[in-house]
């Protein structure tokens, strides 16, 4: 019996050794793999919210657009957005149910402190037993300009984009309607779900930015692209074009008329510059047909437009829907569409950020800078861990042609359709647009501009959707130009 008891002791000890081996396997050797299991979402979440997530700051490095604060609940930190809807389309939300969006998503590695650049600090935190801290993101957004743009746009549906043409820095990016990211980022699942459901059920789609996510016909503002194509193809500002009251569209019985149905003033022939100043649809239709779809497409694509909505290649720090100009093959059986496209109708589409890039390229001597929203990343200790320098995107125009087009756009504001954007003592270059988007629907009012024309510091594009406050009487000059003016004034005051 004694021998068996001793053997039993050894056997039971073996069982315990097996358990110790398995426990060390589960808790140490397989721990990382287990942590990444798809069913482990709740713990991944808890681990994620253990981090003192970095802040998202305005260009001044002080104004806090998004920050973490301690929470009393199971999740340690809660995300707060002090300005509510104002920066929602830039910061995005940080929801434990629906994930992240915009900067919260694109810069998550830095904000969550997992980026390799932060290794030194996170390692020090780990050794000292401190919670992991994320890095802060410094954006290019000027909070004063953002305020002014939001105030100027008021409650009107639409968007405003302001860019520094020299660097591509996005100074303001405002869109209506917006949403408050705070309830989406709260730790109350019922509130998060209810908010999410309501936002997604909203026919106005507030989660999408009218300034950079959606596409609209650019209307007459696209004439600056067509004009750029004409200049690049050897037609100077003084080149003359027939000036009838209407243009017979090829292959159809349809005609293209000027806005309001009248003939542009200036006789039977008209210069390119004069046609832009008066925004003559008929003349730009002719120009489009003369240049042909390939030249138009090449010019539009050089500005960042893409053949389809999902092929855009303008890099940006948050998702950006670039403009669309169809592939030339599209026009093979649709010749009238060439004329319509030249005046920003048919399948041509854009948004304020895209049009601001076009204006900025013209303003910057034809060199289009890549739009930049994040300028640097600062570690939790304040040290700069990453800097993003301005980068060029393309050279859609020669400097000479850019100067010529600038002068033409100055005329638009001085004595053309864009006089509402005049600022005493400042030369403003601009182009209006009043884009039809359906029979019986009030038009979208556009204004695309930059100033000062001789040394541009800011390019601004504005869209007010569906006639804004003026309904079917809306025009870009009446509705959108004053908004752009307010933003330019504020930008030049800074």
């Amino acid at each position: 019996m004694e021998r068996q008891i001793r053997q039993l002791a050894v056997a039971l000890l073996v069982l315990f050794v097996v358990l110790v081996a398995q426990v060390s396997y589960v808790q140490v050797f397989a721990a990382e793999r287990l942590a990444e299991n798809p069913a482990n979402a709740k713990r991944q979440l808890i681990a994620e919210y253990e981090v003192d997530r970095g802040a998202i700051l305005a260009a001044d490095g002080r104004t806090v657009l998004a920050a973490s604060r301690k929470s009393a609940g199971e999740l340690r930190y809660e995300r707060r957005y002090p300005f509510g809807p104002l920066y929602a389309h830039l910061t995005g939300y940080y929801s434990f149910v629906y994930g992240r969006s915009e900067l919260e998503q694109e810069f998550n590695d830095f904000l969550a402190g997992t980026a390799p650049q932060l290794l030194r600090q996170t390692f020090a935190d780990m050794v000292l037993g401190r919670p992991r801290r994320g890095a802060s993101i410094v954006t290019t957004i000027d909070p004063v300009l953002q305020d002014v743009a939001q105030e100027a746009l008021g409650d009107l549906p639409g968007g405003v984009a302001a860019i520094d043409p020299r660097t591509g820095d996005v100074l303001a990016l405002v869109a209506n309607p917006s949403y408050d990211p705070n309830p989406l980022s709260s730790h109350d699942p019922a509130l998060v779900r209810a908010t999410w459901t309501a936002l997604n059920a909203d026919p106005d789609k507030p989660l999408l930015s009218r300034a950079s996510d959606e596409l609209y016909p650019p209307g007459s503002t696209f004439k600056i692209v067509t004009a750029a194509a004409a200049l690049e193809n050897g037609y100077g500002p003084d080149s003359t074009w027939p000036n009838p009251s209407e243009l017979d569209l090829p292959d159809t019985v349809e005609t293209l008329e000027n806005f309001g149905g009248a003939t542009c003033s200036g006789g039977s022939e008209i210069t390119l510059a004069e046609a832009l100043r008066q925004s003559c649809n008929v003349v730009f239709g002719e120009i489009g047909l003369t240049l042909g779809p390939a030249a138009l497409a090449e010019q539009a694509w050089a500005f960042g437009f893409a053949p389809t909505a999902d092929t855009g290649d303008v890099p940006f720090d948050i998702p950006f829907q670039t403009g669309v100009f169809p592939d030339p093959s599209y026009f093979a059986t649709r010749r009238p569409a060439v004329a319509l496209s030249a005046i920003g109708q048919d399948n041509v589409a854009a948004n304020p950020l895209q049009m601001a890039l076009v204006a900025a390229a013209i303003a910057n001597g034809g060199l289009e800078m890549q739009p930049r929203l994040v300028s640097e990343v600062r570690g939790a200790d304040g040290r700069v861990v990453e800097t993003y320098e301005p980068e060029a995107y393309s050279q859609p125009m020669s400097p000479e042609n850019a100067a010529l087009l600038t002068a033409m756009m100055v005329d638009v504001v001085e004595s053309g359709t864009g006089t509402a954007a005049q600022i005493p003592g400042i030369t403003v270059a601009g182009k209006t647009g009043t884009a039809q988007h359906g029979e019986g629907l009030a038009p979208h009012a556009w204004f695309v501009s930059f100033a000062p024309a001789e040394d541009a510091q800011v390019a601004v594009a504005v869209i007010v959707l569906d006639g804004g406050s003026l309904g079917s009487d809306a025009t870009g000059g009446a509705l959108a130009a004053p908004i752009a003016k307010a933003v330019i004034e504020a930008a030049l005051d800074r």
Partner: protein
Amino acid sequence: MSQAALPRGRPRQGAQIAFTALALVIAVGAYVLAGLGKRGQVPITLALYGSIFAVGFAAAALVIRRFAPGADPALFPTAAVLTGLGFATIFRLSGGLAAEQATWVAIGLGAFCITLVLVRDHRQLDAYTYTIGLIGIVLLLLPIVPGIGRTINGARLWVKVGPIGFQPSEIGKVLIVVFLASYLNQKRELLRVATGGVGRLRLPPAKHLMPVLLAWGASLAVLFIQRDLGASLLYFGIFVVMLWVATGRLAYLLLGLLLFALGAGFGYAAFDHVQLRVDVWLHALDPAKVFDVGYGQLAQAQFGMATGGLVGTGLGQGSPGLIPFAPTDFIFAAIGEELGMLGTVGVLLLYVVLVGKGLQAALACPDGFGRLLATGLAAAVALQTFVIVGGVTRVIPLTGVTLPFVSYGGSSLVSNFVLLALLVRVSAGPAPVRPKGGG
């Protein structure tokens, strides 16, 4: 039997009382730390629960000193640390369950003391072989009785009479060990005799084989009728181990393993829930299945332990609430999350000490009954721990049994304290012969 002649007595009790004081510090300390970790403050229940542990442990230590002076000094303190760690973990999971568990700790310690006071010499129990055996079997099968039996979580383990519910199989387990120790001690010479067999595998005559087959049948009955995989495995394991130790015949162990394999194979073929258990065991982390209920539960236990890593999140600072059945079946995973591998290995070492000391008491015991009794009780603790910890850590398919002294549950805690009292009693050696008579 030279050990029996060694002087035993009070010197060992100084160590026992020091160990118990240390156990009290660990138990109350863990519970206070859990409160600090969870709420950032010393638990408001400190005075109440602290005094339950202080008074209960002190009472047990003094009863051992008074009524079992020769007892092993480590047995009770080891179980006391386990009880304290379990209580801290339960408290951390649910204040309400902690209140119940504190009551059961008090009752369990009371049962421990009463057992030691009533059973002055383990050989007293040897006189009631069949009575104890009968009560054990009845308790085991009580949940089958219509009207009082209750099915909880798919297993028919519970008896409910009026408002009081309990798991009679827990105390039945202890009684059956006592019965087997007594029965096998009486019959072991008969069972040793090999008369037939194949080759080197010599087996005793059929009439003496009957108990093995009977126990096998009873285990299968528990499995079939009560659907209690864990208990079935445990009973059969205890029985085979005791039979082997009693007779010294390896044939019984081999036969037992064979019968176990047959029973397991049959159970697998016959029962969906057995097949499910095996599939869950093998595929708990399979991405295609991990979101299903049974798989997810076991997966969450793995995730909890993995989160704990080497040193754990700290008591009260993890999220063991995400582990299903954390206070009962999966309490080992909850400990793993907050105390890490250091905590889980520490708990396993405490069981090694407990079981080792139990087997040491068996070796030191001069009589066959006491030896078998201590061996059976120690093996019961070891096998039960292996079944549940192995199940939780995916060494074997999970079958729901409690982790002795640690899991939430009154029936389990009280019967384990009775079991511990019997081990302490055996370790104390035979009662001194007194003028009144007795021994």
